[in-house]
């Protein structure tokens, strides 16, 4: 659906060369919600604007439904853009128009007949839950309501794609939730493909199917949200998924866990719909190892629970290895975080 190939964007700030985007490759599939996450200054916003060519890449290819956008003339490009809605962190509504006119203006620009506009705008306001606010001005609306107007406006031309530029970053958590629900809703109802950028992992967790993690103009990791959460590789990704166990496992704890036998601290990721208890007790009994849960948490990814457990496993070295390979079979992801050697045996003289 959306394909970005080898995108680079370089610009000059005075005489300094700034590489805003470096060799970006992304493919967004039809109907999915694709998230791009990164700290501010990572280049997410520039990348999002490349999709509808509000920003032109220095090199690379941008194609939508197989059509290479960089070869289009302005008029053709405008026709493509009409099918790509966009919403913003700061909403960017027209302050001199009321809610109705804010949604209607783009339809008027495209010469849609008045009656059709009336019906269309009414339907859209109903969809975003603002049917009673049609004659209010943006200045009198809350942030969440403004974003709803933004969404209604973005949907006016029946787009196939919706770009969200930090659409919830200016909103409080409760309002963020309601806007995200609305996005999920229109994604399902209208089959809309959504690309969103954010710096909040919560947003990715709640709505995205796939995610790309950006840092310093590059995509350092991408995959399904489940994969990224169950097995984050890069440091920044770990940071975003709240997987910074370095601070969690302290030296004191390691000393306390050190026994006569060697042991491991494992990170187990499991789909929440599969219970882990039997697996752990099975391992304990069939390989005669001891298992202790050190830490556990459950994250919901688009409603599906993903469990993360930190387990301390101790026992005979060979048995331990067997136990781990058994776990690897049974559990979604297994990662050895720490290896703790057994206490050196006291030698009697």
């Amino acid at each position: 659906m959306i394909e970005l190939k080898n995108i680079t964007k370089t610009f000059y700030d005075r005489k300094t060369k700034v590489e805003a985007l470096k060799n970006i490759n992304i493919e967004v599939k039809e109907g999915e919600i694709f998230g791009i996450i990164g700290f501010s200054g990572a280049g997410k916003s520039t990348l999002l604007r490349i999709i509808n060519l509000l920003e032109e890449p220095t090199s690379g290819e941008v194609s939508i439904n197989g059509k290479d956008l960089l070869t289009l003339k302005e008029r053709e490009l405008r026709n493509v853009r009409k099918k790509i809605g966009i919403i913003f962190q700061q909403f960017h509504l027209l302050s001199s128009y009321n809610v109705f006119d804010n949604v209607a203006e783009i339809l008027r620009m495209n010469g849609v007949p008045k009656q059709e506009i009336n019906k269309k705008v009414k339907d859209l306001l109903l969809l975003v839950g603002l049917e009673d606010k049609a004659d209010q001005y943006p200045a009198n609306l809350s942030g969440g309501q403004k974003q709803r107007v933004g969404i209604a406006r973005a949907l006016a031309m029946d787009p196939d794609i919706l770009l969200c530029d930090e659409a919830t970053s200016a909103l409080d958590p409760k309002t963020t939730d309601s806007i995200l629900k609305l996005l999920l809703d229109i994604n399902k109802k209208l089959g809309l493909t959504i690309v969103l950028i954010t710096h909040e992992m919560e947003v990715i967790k709640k709505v995205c199917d796939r995610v790309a993690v950006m840092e310093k103009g590059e995509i350092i990791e991408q995959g399904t949200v489940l994969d990224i959460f169950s097995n984050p590789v890069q440091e920044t990704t770990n940071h975003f998924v709240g997987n910074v166990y370095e601070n969690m496992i302290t030296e004191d704890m390691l000393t306390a866990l050190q026994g006569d036998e060697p042991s491991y601290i494992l990170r187990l990721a499991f789909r929440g719909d599969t219970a882990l208890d039997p697996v752990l007790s099975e391992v304990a009994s069939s390989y005669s190892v001891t298992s202790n849960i050190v830490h556990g948490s459950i994250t919901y990814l688009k409603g599906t629970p993903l469990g993360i457990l930190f387990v301390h496993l101790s026992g005979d070295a060979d048995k331990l290895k067997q136990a781990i390979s058994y776990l690897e079979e049974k559990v979604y992801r297994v990662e050895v975080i720490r290896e703790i050697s057994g206490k050196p045996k006291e030698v009697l003289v």
Partner: protein
Amino acid sequence: MLDRMDELAPLFGISLYETLVMVIVSLVIATVIGIPLGVLLVVTRPNHLYPNKWIFQLLNTIVNIIRSLPFIILMLAIIPFTELIVGTSIGIRGAIVPLIVYIAPYIARLVETAFLEVNYGIIEAYRGMGASRFQIILRIMIREARPGILLCMTIALIGLIGATAMAGVIGAGGLGDLALRYGYQQWDMPVMFGTVIILIVLVQIIQSLGNYFAKKLKMSG
């Protein structure tokens, strides 16, 4: 002063009429020139709708040059140009040309600031939705900048009244001419005083109306 009312009333009447003619005609024409000029000063900036360094620099320099001349000097300096355009450099006709040359760049500069206050994000939003650049200028930028433009026009109008008074020097008639001939040359204090009152009232009315309508536009938006 009151005992000379019969004599002075028509004098003030005619002068006020002449002032208003000069102001209105030059304001209308200067607006037609000034607003597009103001738009160009905004959209030709780097990273705007029609970035063009050369046009921007050229217009910017012209506006700066004209804006740095006091009206009385500008009026005298462009006499050949005025004669070329309207065939005379005196009277109301002779005054209107320099008034336009003086106030159009003024309007352009004021309108420029009003346009710059339109958040570029809004422009980007409509570009992203496939609106043409022309539609964005006409239907988004001008519409959003309306309250600001109205206040600009109020300021320009008051500046214009000040300039018309100086046009009295070239025999353009109007309140300035009246004050010059009666007030200054004949030291006729009641006429001078009357002119001052009329000007104060005129400017007050214009400013209040401007504020009122700008506020009204803002409330509806």
